[in-house]
């Protein structure tokens, strides 16, 4: 009993902290507003649109990710590792930068329309509900692909060998190996994407083409800023949390652990018999090429647009870059320290999973205001600036880190719990000898994401900025805000390069630390 208690204590503490941050903030806003206010007809329309676009974005991202992940799993080619890392780039870009990349490719004057024009094809338009979906798939396909690819890699090679020696055809492989893996991975992946899209704001607005694409987050913004109605903002924020928790419970219900049993721990290599056939090879090549083109063209456009402006960047960009790097590394550490115990507990305790996802469900606007209201009576909020930047960045990465870790932790627990128990392996020894090495890959990926998030994060610093301290994204936004679009593009290229380098280094470090 005492051991059990000690095992869940870190997770319980982390959960309590996150719950206090999110729900406490919401409560503080509601109290300050003197209670919740009823919603309007336009708010209900916003809720409907938000649900629709988030569900569709999640569904499409996951469906498209399956062939891409399978192709990447089955094929080996030079540059595969780099490609897999590069495909993650959209997810880690600051939104505004990515939107400009998408416009450069799919916009009125974009590459696609330029290519279509000579054939007399009607120009395509990215503005409208479909544009929002395209953008969300662009952002989240990488996440889904990576999560599913991790799932594939977690199937022990022995199972594929067995399948090959039993002369399984594609249908049998799908039924006995791939489908159980997908049942374990897909609900979590769709949930994560659904939640990301649920709180979408800038993407939905910029590409939505007008007020028809109003999301709940924008409605909250409007309640706060346009109507000065904090009560309605709190009500809407509560609706967001309720939707998220419902989605979470549904996802948890349909998730089943794959439990393939432990293998001999060889790197999961493709088995030739299972991937031959000209048809399959063509399909795999097509999936990889299409995904790469879709994901990398906008990134390439952003990179190329800013390249000429790099030498003209103002000197202030360099201290801003250093600040960003420092914050990113520190916030990555905090993310891992909180996410790991949460993820370890979350596979057994639903409350830990819900707590881990909470930061994602809350409206940033409401959370920020609430934290301010809570802190004010006790301390001068200004003295909390740096810790708050760090914590908020970390809090927003924790849901992703937890989601990425959970499927592999389930496998780890199913495969090694009995062995570890019979050896009396527990506590720190278990962490060092079993948990950390086995989770090296998802940990590296999570760390990469957390660092990239923090690096590309615009908002939090603007709250704490005294006008002199700034991060790279803030500098970028300030350049844009003062007509200096070319220099801003240069800053975007720099940001893109550094963010990706950080992500790549941590992700690779995870791969190297994996004993398999």
């Amino acid at each position, binding site marked *: 009993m005492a051991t059990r208690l000690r095992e869940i204590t870190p997770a319980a503490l982390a959960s309590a902290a996150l719950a206090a941050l999110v729900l406490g903030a919401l409560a503080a806003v509601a109290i300050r507003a003197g209670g919740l206010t009823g919603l309007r007809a336009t708010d209900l329309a916003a809720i409907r649109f938000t649900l629709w676009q988030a569900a569709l974005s999640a569904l499409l991202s996951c469906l498209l990710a399956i062939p891409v992940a399978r192709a990447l799993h089955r094929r080996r080619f030079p540059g595969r590792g780099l490609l897999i890392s590069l495909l993650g780039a959209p997810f880690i870009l600051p939104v505004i930068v990515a939107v400009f990349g998408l416009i450069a490719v799919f916009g009125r004057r974009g590459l696609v329309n330029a290519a279509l024009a000579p054939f007399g094809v009607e120009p395509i338009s990215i503005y409208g509900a479909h544009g929002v979906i395209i953008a969300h798939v662009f952002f989240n396909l990488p996440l889904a692909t990576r999560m599913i690819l991790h799932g594939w890699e977690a199937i022990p090679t022995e199972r594929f060998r067995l399948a090959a020696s039993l002369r399984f055809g594609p249908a049998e492989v799908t039924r006995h190996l791939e489908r159980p893996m997908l049942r374990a991975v897909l609900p979590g992946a769709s949930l994560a994407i659904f939640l990301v899209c649920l709180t979408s704001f800038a993407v939905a607005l910029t590409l939505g083409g*007008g007020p028809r694409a109003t999301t709940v987050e924008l409605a909250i913004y409007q309640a706060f800023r346009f109507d000065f109605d904090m009560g309605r903002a709190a009500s809407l924020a509560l609706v967001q949390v309720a939707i998220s928790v419902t989605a979470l419970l549904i996802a948890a219900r349909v998730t089943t652990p794959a439990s393939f049993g432990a293998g001999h721990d060889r790197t999961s290599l493709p088995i030739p018999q299972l991937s031959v056939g000209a048809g399959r090879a063509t399909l795999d090549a097509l999936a990889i090429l299409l995904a790469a083109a879709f994901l990398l063209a906008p990134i390439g456009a952003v990179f190329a647009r800013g390249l000429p402006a790099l030498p003209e960047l103002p000197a202030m960009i360099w201290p801003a870059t250093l600040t960003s790097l420092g914050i990113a590394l520190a916030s990555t550490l905090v993310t891992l320290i909180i996410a790991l115990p949460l993820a370890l507990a979350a596979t057994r305790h639903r409350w830990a999973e819900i707590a881990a996802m909470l930061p994602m469900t809350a409206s940033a606007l409401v959370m920020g205001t609430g934290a301010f209201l809570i802190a004010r009576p006790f301390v001068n909020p200004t003295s909390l600036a740096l810790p708050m930047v760090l914590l908020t960045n970390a809090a927003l990465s924790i849901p992703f880190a937890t989601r990425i870790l959970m499927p592999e932790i389930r496998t780890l627990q199913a495969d090694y719990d009995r062995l570890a128990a019979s050896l009396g392996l527990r506590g720190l020894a278990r962490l060092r000898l079993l948990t950390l090495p086995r989770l090296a890959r998802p940990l590296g990926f999570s760390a990469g994401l957390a660092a990239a998030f923090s690096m590309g994060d615009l908002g939090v610093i603007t709250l704490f900025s005294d006008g002199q301290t700034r991060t790279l994204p803030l500098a970028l936004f300030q350049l844009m805000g003062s007509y200096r679009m070319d220099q801003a593009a240069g800053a975007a290229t720099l940001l893109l390069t550094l963010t990706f380098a950080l992500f790549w280094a941590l992700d690779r470090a995870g791969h190297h630390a994996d004993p398999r």
Partner: protein
Amino acid sequence: MKTHLMLAGALSLIATMAAAEDKPVLTVYAPDYFTSDWGPGPAIEKGFEAICDCDLKFVAGDVLPRILLEGDKTQADIAIGLNTDVTAKARATGLFAPHNEDTSNLTMPVKWTDPIFLPFDWSELAFVYDKTKLKTPPKSFEELLDAPKDAYKIVIEDPRSSIAGLSLLLWVKDIYGDKAEQAWEKMAPKVLTVTPGWSEAYGMFTDGEADMVLSYVTSPAYHIMAEKDDSKVAAIFPEGHYFTPELVAQLKTSKHPELAQKFMDYVLSPEFQGMIATANWSFPAKLPHDQLPEVFQTLPMPDKTLYLGEDEAEKLRGPALDEWQRAFAK
């Protein structure tokens, strides 16, 4: 992706590590663009510190929401960069003190009598286009509305999140009154998209994605002066253009009221006013025409200026937003 919203979240637990210096500190809340290296903030700080024997500290962020949350415990001595959309709300708090400045000789097209909120610069809304690309720009608001839907694509800002967008709402309402919704219905097919803020919209215009952008009559001045590029032009409409001043006010709760008043005096001084044109790309509120940079003296300007007073704007913006939403929903 969501975090940048916190910018507006009024949270603003801002890093003004209270300077442990002997000089009194004057705390000025200002919008983020204002304090950046390219805004007027740094020069103002230097200029004022040279005459005040004090330490001027900017706190950058969402000015009014932060003050509203802090109430009478606010650290702010001065709030600068307020827009007319928030003055009614700000006034109602009773937190702001009169500016005590003579506003009878401001160089603005609108007579200013507000005793609390003092304008330090102004511009007027305009649709900006590239004359080398757009051969048939609209010559009036009417022409813009009546143009065929593929004549040009315009990008505008959302009135719910941007002051430019909100001012456009009032501009249309002022010209078209009861017919505003029909006006929006005519404009909607030409609106490429609606962005959260000015930066995104203007970026889409300079990237060539949009033919026209809702910006200001003073925007071309930046391109002419900083980039030696005279292709960007503001379309001037005979119906009149909407007036957009930026305001400054002092707080009643200031611990250094004399310093705060001194800052208000400084705002209308020739030194401060002389910096505005090229630091904020707008017209100073009090500077004779012949003292403006030459480019500003020769900018094409509308003959007629439109401006709804605070009360009327406050009354109209709710219904006007509904009309706007309805027109775009069709």
